[in-house]
């Protein structure tokens, strides 16, 4: 079982019943995870491909969501789709260098759990700091957006974002250190 299974499966089951709010949370959460999953497995410089794969996987999830059996683990289902899309992508573009082909071929195996675990711990820690700085840290430090872009979207100055991220990270560091 992959981390986040219980929350994600609950969201998926509500989505299958037609709950749009649950579906949005699910897709938002999965986008972050899938982005990490694909970026880790494609060579640096192929971030655009990773984003294409994220979208392809979300589309596949949407179109084939009825093939999810609610009595089975959701994350395994999702990782099988992501792994399939990645393998298909690599097959179509054999000439493209990858970060590590051997690793890419075994994406359906549990080596994804490490990244997902880190992802989950991060989500849990991030949940402890205020929403504004949290979103900025996510955008800038995890998704790799520029500070200017994030500031423009939030409607604040770049320095406010910088300070917010700095304070948020310091708060996070404090949380990590006080953990047993």
């Amino acid at each position, binding site marked *: 079982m992959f981390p986040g299974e219980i929350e994600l499966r609950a969201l998926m089951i509500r*989505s*299958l*019943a*037609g709950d*749009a709010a649950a*579906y*949005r949370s699910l*897709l*938002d959460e999965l*986008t972050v995870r899938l982005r990490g999953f694909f970026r880790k497995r494609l060579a640096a410089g192929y971030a655009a491909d990773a*984003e294409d794969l*994220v*979208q392809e996987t*979300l*589309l*596949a999830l*949407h179109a*084939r*969501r*009825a*093939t*999810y*059996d609610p009595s*089975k*683990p959701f994350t*395994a*289902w*999702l*990782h*099988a*789709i992501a*792994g*399939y899309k990645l393998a*298909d992508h690599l097959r179509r573009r054999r000439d493209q260098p990858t970060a590590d082909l051997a690793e890419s071929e075994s994406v*359906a195996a549990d080596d994804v759990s490490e990244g997902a675990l880190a992802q989950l711990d991060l989500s849990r820690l991030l949940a402890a700091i205020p929403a504004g700085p949290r979103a900025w840290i996510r955008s800038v430090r995890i998704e790799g957006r520029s500070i200017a872009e994030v500031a423009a979207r939030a409607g604040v100055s770049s320095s406010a974002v910088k300070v917010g991220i700095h304070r948020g990270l310091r708060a996070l560091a404090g949380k990590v250190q006080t953990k047993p």
Partner: protein
Amino acid sequence: MTTNDLIDRLVTELTPAARGLVVRRIAMGVAVGLAASAALMLTLLGARQNLLAVLSSEVYWLKSGYALLLAACGFWAVARLSRPAGKGGAPGIIGALLVFVFAGLALSDLLAAPEAMRAELILGKSALVCPWLIALLAAPVVAGLLWAMRGLAPTELRGAGFAAGLMGGAVGAWVYAFHCPESGTPFIALWYTAGIMIAGAIGLFLGPRLLRW
């Protein structure tokens, strides 16, 4: 399109998912394939004479029971392999057990028979055509299954194709039993199984080519 736009679009397009879609779609593929296969058998080969008498014979039930049990395993495997992360292990093991049990039964029949009759029990009169005719009758069912799986989400295409081939083969064998004049269990254990395996090999070959999505 940015990923956020995509998510917006998908959320607005969300409708409650169809329940039981996987099984329903596979059943539809089998039904259409089975109808075509039966039509092929009736026009090309013809059902046996005195079919009613045949239907009450023990060997007919062995033949058709063997084929139907294998088809049930095949259906189970196809249904599992049509879903992402689905594995065909359990149905595969049960299917292999069925083959071994039936082979054991056939072997005991063979050993119990007088030596002079053994060649007849193994080869019958149609050993050379039986597996090929089963594979032929399997073809529409395999096609129906591959069509069904294309609309689902198999992620292990070789396994999925193989399962579709084996299930189509088992259904083809069941249809063939309405024509087949043979009555020895060794014949069935060998040539029916061979026909089913030919269909399985065809599915194994076609899976990665036809099931991509």
